[in-house]
């Protein structure tokens, strides 16, 4: 980064950019504080607040477009001021923040509307919308902060909102456990992010974006690497990337709109935001970038392999999210022009993945909450709208021309092939292989759900389409899945240039020609999809069948959960038990033994515990005598 980062002070209408955070936050407070009194209308307040935030976001967006310097910040109050540490409660509205605001409030609004229908029969609907609004407020703070501490506040805020929503049905033990797992794994990442912030302050004396970005170039290379790796740790936690990916599939215990908004479209992309926002740091160190790329490539393949073995519709989608975010990490790791590519894929993914999750919710709605794709089949006839909209999402995610994934994933694959050395083949190959695998497992999901013979459980006789309040958001998101990628690819890349730098054309040439890569990836996509179609068009067994070692491993999440259990959980539980024993018998035992020895045996000690005032008074008197005696001694000069 050669140029200096500078943000103008927000004036005029943009000075009120804090309303974006305040509106959903106030709404959440009302919903949670009023309690049952708000049950009748609470959900509409929740929807309206996000709608208002979206309109505000659009207004600010147009204001920003007319500004020359396209970045404004607004300091609201001094948050922390101790010694030379100054942290403002400050917001930054720039092109990167703007696209996230529009994604969060736009897609968020549609999902809120959908949730009115989805949660209609849940007695906790008002509470649900309270948490949902809380999430939107925290997420907006995360992307709008103008320093790393604000980002951290939003970061942990979305973490707690996510926890509350995953364990929304908290009297289900599995939901409670899943929420706790998500929060704990996220906290591991958060600790990394926190230490990165400490490094910034210790070396640069500031946590403001502008100061950190402008000063980063002067840091020692080891410092940059450490800071970047710690930021990456934070990012992997929030975004469900290796090695902190295990919580995300379990998070599907939450209501489906939660999975759509938080665990697909917005919160889990915060890691990508963090790295893109910190691009002046990551661009400084090629080693760091290679680590990010490796995490992305590894995770995208892991997601594909595991996704292909799962039978739970939401978990397949969850692993596909892990995999797609892997592509985004690949993009931000490649750096240069690929930063913008990752963000564009993130936006497109927000549409098609939210669409598919809500579609899955619609299917579950009609199938009495069944989630096992082995027990679906032939639903296309019964749920026309869901079928079509889900189909559009499916075509988008596998990257079929002319659907949005084609315009957003393809460029990342090309960029992966643009590296200078043999690693171009490694990462490009992984991205290409991922495209084929994605086509396979997503087609498996689509075909098993909507086509082939019925394999429903006995209690279902006529699955129904969802009401309009759910299908209208589906239709809008379905449209987004078709056109978003094509519409956004170029203008968004230009729009983001002030933050993420230019496209950098002509710097690198892919080791394969662009056309060749496109042909290869489309071929692999068609092959993957075709193979899945052939294998699953006639349905599948109702139960999981014995399989080879790879499928067995994939079904068990490539043994990552088993690893965590064996290495962290079991020893951890053992350690706490051992320490409890040690503390009671060892440390405290020593204290009691000492007391007993001083008291001349435990019998005497027991007699001390009479609680009688007189024995207490006696000891006070003894103390007083000692005091006086000591004073007299000093007075007399015995110690002088």
């Amino acid at each position, binding site marked *: 980064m050669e140029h200096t980062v500078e943000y103008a002070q927000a004036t005029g209408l943009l000075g009120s950019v804090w309303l974006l955070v305040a509106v959903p936050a106030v709404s959440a407070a009302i919903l949670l504080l009023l309690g049952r009194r708000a049950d009748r209308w609470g959900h509409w307040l929740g929807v309206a607040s996000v709608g208002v935030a979206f309109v505000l976001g659009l207004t600010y967006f147009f204001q920003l477009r007319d500004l020359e310097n396209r970045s404004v910040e607004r300091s609201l109050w001094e*948050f922390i001021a101790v010694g030379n540490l100054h942290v403002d409660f400050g917001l930054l509205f720039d092109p990167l923040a703007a696209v996230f605001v529009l994604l969060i409030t736009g897609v968020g609004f549609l999902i809120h509307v959908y949730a009115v229908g989805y949660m209609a029969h849940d007695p906790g609907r008002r509470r649900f919308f309270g948490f949902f609004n809380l999430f939107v407020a925290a997420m907006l703070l995360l992307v709008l902060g103008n320093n790393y501490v604000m980002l951290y506040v939003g970061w942990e805020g979305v973490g707690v909102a996510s926890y509350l929503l995953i364990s929304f049905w908290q009297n289900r*033990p599995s939901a409670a456990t899943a929420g706790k797992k998500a929060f*704990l794994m996220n906290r591991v990442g958060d600790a990394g992010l926190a230490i990165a912030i400490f490094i910034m302050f210790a070396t640069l004396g500031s946590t403001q974006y502008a100061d950190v970005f402008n000063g980063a170039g002067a840091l020692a290379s080891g410092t940059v690497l450490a800071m970047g790796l710690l930021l990456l740790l934070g990012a992997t936690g929030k975004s469900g990337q290796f090695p902190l990916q295990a919580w995300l599939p379990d998070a599907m215990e939450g209501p489906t709109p939660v999975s759509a908004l938080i665990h697909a479209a917005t919160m889990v992309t915060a890691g990508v935001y963090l790295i893109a926002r910190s691009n002046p740091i990551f661009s400084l160190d090629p080693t760091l970038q290679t680590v990010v790329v490796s995490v992305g490539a590894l995770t995208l393949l892991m997601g594909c392999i595991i996704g292909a073995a799962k039978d739970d519709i939401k978990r397949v989608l969850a692993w596909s999210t892990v995999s797609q975010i892997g592509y985004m990490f690949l993009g931000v790791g490649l750096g240069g022009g690929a930063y913008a590519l990752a963000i564009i894929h993130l936006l497109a993914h927000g549409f098609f993945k939210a669409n598919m999750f809500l579609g899955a919710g619609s299917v579950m709605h009609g199938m009495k909450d069944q989630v096992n794709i082995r027990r679906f089949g032939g639903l296309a006839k019964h749920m026309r709208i869901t079928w079509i909209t889900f189909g559009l999402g499916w075509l988008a995610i596998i990257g079929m021309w002319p659907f949005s994934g084609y315009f957003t994933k393809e460029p990342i694959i090309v960029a992966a092939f643009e590296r200078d050395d043999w690693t171009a083949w490694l990462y490009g190959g992984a991205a290409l292989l991922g495209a084929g695998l994605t086509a396979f497992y997503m087609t498996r999901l689509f075909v098993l759900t909507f086509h082939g013979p019925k394999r429903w459980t006995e209690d279902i006789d006529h699955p129904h389409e969802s009401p309009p309040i759910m299908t209208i958001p589906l239709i809008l998101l379905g449209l987004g899945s078709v056109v978003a990628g094509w519409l956004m690819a170029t203008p968004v890349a230009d729009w983001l240039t002030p933050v993420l730098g230019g496209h950098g054309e002509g710097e690198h040439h892919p080791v394969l020609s662009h056309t060749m890569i496109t042909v290869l990836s489309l071929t692999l996509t068609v092959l993957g999809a075709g193979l899945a179609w052939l294998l699953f068009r006639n349905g599948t067994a109702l139960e999981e069948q014995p399989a080879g070692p790879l499928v067995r491993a994939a079904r068990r999440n490539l043994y990552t959960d088993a690893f965590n259990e064996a290495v962290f959980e079991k020893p951890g539980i053992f350690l706490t038990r051992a320490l409890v024993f040690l503390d009671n018998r060892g440390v405290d035992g020593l204290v009691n033994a000492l007391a007993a020895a001083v008291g001349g045996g435990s019998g005497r000690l027991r007699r001390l515990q009479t609680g009688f005032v007189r024995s207490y008074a006696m000891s006070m008197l003894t103390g007083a005598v000692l005091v006086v005696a000591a004073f007299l001694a000093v007075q007399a000069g015995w110690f002088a």
Partner: protein
Amino acid sequence: MSDFPFLSVLTVAPLVGGLLVAFLPASRGELAKRVAFGWSLAVLALAIAMWVAFDAGGDRLQLRESYSWIPAWGVNFTFAADGIALVMLMLIALLVPVVILASWHDADNLKRSVPVYFGLLLFLESTMIGVFAAADVFLFYVFFEVMLVPMYFLIGSYGGHQRQYAAVKFFLYSLVGGLFMLAAVIGLWALGGKTFDWEALTQADLSTGAERWLFLGFFLAFAIKAPFFPFHTWLPDAGGAAPAGAAALLVGVLDKVGTFGILRYCLPLFPDASKWFAPWAIALALIGIIYAALLAVGQNDLKRLVSYTSIAHFGFIGVGIFAFTTQAGTGAVLYMVNHGLATGLLFLVVGMLVARRGSALISDFGGASKLVPVLAGVLFFAGLASLALPGTAPFVSEFLVLIGTYTVNKPVAIVATAGIILAAAYVLWMVQRTTQGTLNPALSGVEGMRRDLSVRERVVVAPLIALLLLLGFYPKPVTDVINPAVQATMEQDLGRHDPAPTVGTVQEAHR
């Protein structure tokens, strides 16, 4: 108004109120409660007036009053407050009425006098205010010891299971520490010019050896009081046996005398010894953070669990004090305030649960959110504050401690940061086992568990929740008061200055 003798009046007023209440006949329990509550509110009003009169940018020690006591030994009733003492006094004045209201029915079903219980709470308030307001070392010592008396009876007479054992252990343990301090107090008097006046003693010229011994005498008493590992084992017993309100005051305020004492006495009076012992103190504090957090995870008793979380939190405070930077020091003092609010709330809420269930064992709960959703929600909020979630006050203090420590001691800060993961573990696991999951069938049979928070209980938790949120987003009113005092301690007393950023910012960080 600044000429008003705030500190002595604040110390004496609760004592008078306590006498008044305690000597009411046992049959007039209701009256005793009302008088005690009203009295504590009046004390709070006075404390607020004192806060207004205090000039954050003024002298280090303000509101000074001095009355002769034992002229022969130079003992005076000297009171004075710096910013650190001020915020602690404010915390006491705020927590006591809340605790009185929370303890409304705690003594009703015991075969003990109700008026005495509330009288004891006011006595306790008086001694706690005295210990923070004293600016005479001997006076401080007297309050330090006398403070044990009301707490001893609150635990021993009004506590739960094993209360006698816990009360005696608490008393003896503190007394042992106090005796070490007494020896050091006398030594200090002898070597420091035969005066007990704090300001005069800061000028005393002590030999290196004497300073270290005196430091140890004070430090041991404070480390037991705080408590730091390995002197902590009395706290889970005391916290587990004490009635919830007393427990909230015990860990919320009384234990802070330990960390306050280190800041007020060890560091300014023995600056070189403090620096010499700092690595050892940090080591104890750091062990405490991790060790106590792991123990908290393993507890099966709600009140003991909260006690262990406090030991971990005291570890953060200890690290913050001995890091010797303004951020870490201010963070540590702010932590003392915030921990009082957060753990105070947590203890009170746990007390509400225990009172309903008749048991503090976590395994006696399970799925309680189904029966008492609001209470479960408040427990969760208190837990979030306890794990220092951003947006709640403890985040600011924990962040300051860690960032201030990092600038001078990276490994310590990094290990301490691991403590935030464990904090999430013990809080969330407690919440899960208590309020989430399937409803424990035994629970729905308990009459009390069918009542969610009463109006009185809502009034108890509301101000604490509001303050935790307010200070979570806008901590400046408190940090502005603490900061000058901490800065004076670090720069004038210890001669330590914050390290400058190693690279420095390209542009001025702050406008």
